[in-house]
């Protein structure tokens, strides 16, 4: 614990603007989704759009302030620890968010689908769904008229396997980049970070290809029963996190081109790397439990 004084920032306009943007986003999204489902039009999308604009403004402005404070030498080692702990707990909260969806997947596989199919302690339920058989992946749902099951599934040993290789390699490349940064090899750093971003974009590209394939040819959609629901929610939220992570890495690259970060002081880069490892680990879980098993 340090005895030097801890940096307490001046008044800042960013928090209140950021709150406004979240308020606009929440209200706009609510209006947009309701209008979408009711089939009407509304001003929701404009409010939503305004929310995003304000959010981008905040992100730029707030980070700009933080970066200049950091470069201005206002931060102590203790401040650095606050950032690190904050980032780690944030990643923990993300882990718990995914845990909710993984939990749902395990629940339906272990309990609800078997019960509906007449297996296990609540198998008597099958009375309501005559002819339904429990299988996983669930190709025929209990009520195919309402939820038509997928015709085919994504083959784990093609695109998903390739994507696994891509993401795991990207975890390696970013680690190499990090070491290069700590040793002061700027060129090497730039190269390996750029490689990481290329791998990330390749991953996202193949993920999009897979989704298009699923919707157009496999009949695997959000509406195709619980398999489709868990598949798209898990891979979709993961893909969203990869997208965010890629943007973060790209910003890091720009800052590095700008001459930012020193071998000793580069918390933002480290946080980005942690985040990247996190999305990587989630993917491994997805690959095993969603695609393979």
């Amino acid at each position, binding site marked *: 614990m340090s005895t030097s004084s801890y940096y307490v920032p001046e008044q800042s306009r960013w928090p209140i603007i950021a709150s406004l943007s979240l308020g606009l986003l929440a209200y706009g999204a609510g209006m947009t989704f309701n209008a979408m489902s009711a089939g009407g039009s509304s001003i929701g999308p404009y409010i939503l759009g305004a929310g995003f604009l304000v959010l981008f403004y905040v992100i730029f402005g707030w980070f700009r302030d933080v970066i200049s404070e950091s470069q201005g030498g206002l931060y102590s080692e203790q401040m650095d620890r606050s950032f690190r702990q904050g980032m780690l707990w944030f990643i923990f909260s993300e882990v718990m968010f995914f845990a909710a969806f993984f939990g749902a997947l395990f629940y339906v596989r272990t309990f609800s689908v078997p*019960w509906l199919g007449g297996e296990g302690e609540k198998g008597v*339920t099958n*009375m*309501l769904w005559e002819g339904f058989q429990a299988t996983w992946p669930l190709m025929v749902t209990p009520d195919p008229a309402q939820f038509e099951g997928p015709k085919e599934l994504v083959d784990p040993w093609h695109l998903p396997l390739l994507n696994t290789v891509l993401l795991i390699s990207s975890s390696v490349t970013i680690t190499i980049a990090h070491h290069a940064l700590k040793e002061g090899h700027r060129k090497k750093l730039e190269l390996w970070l750029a490689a990481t971003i290329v791998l990330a974009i390749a991953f996202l590209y193949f993920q999009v290809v897979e989704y298009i394939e699923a919707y157009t040819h496999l009949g695997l959609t959000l509406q195709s029963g619980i398999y489709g629901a868990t598949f798209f929610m898990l891979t979709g939220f993961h893909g969203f996190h990869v997208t965010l992570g890629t943007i973060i890495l790209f910003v890091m690259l720009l800052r590095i081109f700008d001459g930012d970060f020193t071998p000793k002081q580069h918390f933002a880069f480290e946080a980005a790397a942690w985040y990247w490892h996190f999305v990587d680990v989630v993917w491994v879980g997805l690959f095993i439990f969603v695609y393979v098993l």
Partner: protein
Amino acid sequence: MTKALLALGLSLAGSSAMADWQVNLNRGVTEISNAVFDLHMLIFWICVVIGVGVFGVMFYSIFMHRKSKGAQAAHFHENTTVEVVWTVIPFLILIGMAIPATGTLMDMYDTSEADVDIQVTGYQWKWRYQYLDEDIDFFSNMSTPREEIYNEAGKNPNYLLEVDNPLVIPAGKKVRFLITANDVIHSWWVPHFAVKKDAIPGFINESWVRVDEPGVYRGQCTELCGKDHGFMPVVVEVKPQAEYEAWVAAQKAKQAALADAASQSYSIDELIATGEGVYQRVCAACHAPNGGGVPGAFPAITGSAIATGPIADHINIVANGKSGTAMQAFKEQLSAVDLAAVVTYQRNRLGNAVGDFVNPSDIQNY
């Protein structure tokens, strides 16, 4: 202190189950409900003893160790022995409670070897009872009149706990309930049986009861299921075997009579007259007694596109419902006569004047 009041209250509790100042659980009329009651009392008294002990020491301190009486604060702030003791003893008490509780729970879950199987289905806001071994299938709606609820008439003693068609079961037989729901989650509860099971749409939960004492037992839905959650009572009539058999025979005769009635022809006025009763009993809960609906939640009948459009569409939606909404498939619930009548009523009353009507024989095809 308040705990002591509760103890006093409990000992004063009369034996009459319906006493206005009832403060305790009903002992109930089944072996399980008795076991549950005994467990409840056991745990209650354990809690009372713990409460009296803890609060006794606390109030002793409050009274004796106050500064105004010149008390000087002692300096102790830990005592390992005491701390271990008050960790271990509660743990042992808990084990003592857990063992009998587990036994009772296992009995509750043993639904094997039932004599009668009844499927209980929760609907917004009524119960449906299907006797799986007999061809008996009926709905049970609350029969308390609106006037009593809106304080325009005096309330009868069974206010909100009365239905048009109670569930009837034989005394002394093990009756298994297969509980499910059609729309949202409900919960089927009869306190005197200690049976409470959630009715989950798409899944079946099992429960059972064996009642030796004939009588009428009343309960309610106990899972929030929408607007009229408070108005879907459960009434079970337990009849001696012979009376039960007579009731089964009567039910079958009634269904034959309904089939017969469906083949007759009716005039528009007859249909409207019958339809009004059906509407107020079945439809008014959502679409409002005057047909105005509830804006944003339930559409109005008055001037609606369906009720003033082609009659075939109108019959279709009433008979088959609209999936994904609260509109149920009423062909399961209403006889052909009632269906024809209520459609005719909706088209020609409640501010609508289409002028056409439908006979029950034309309903069969939907």
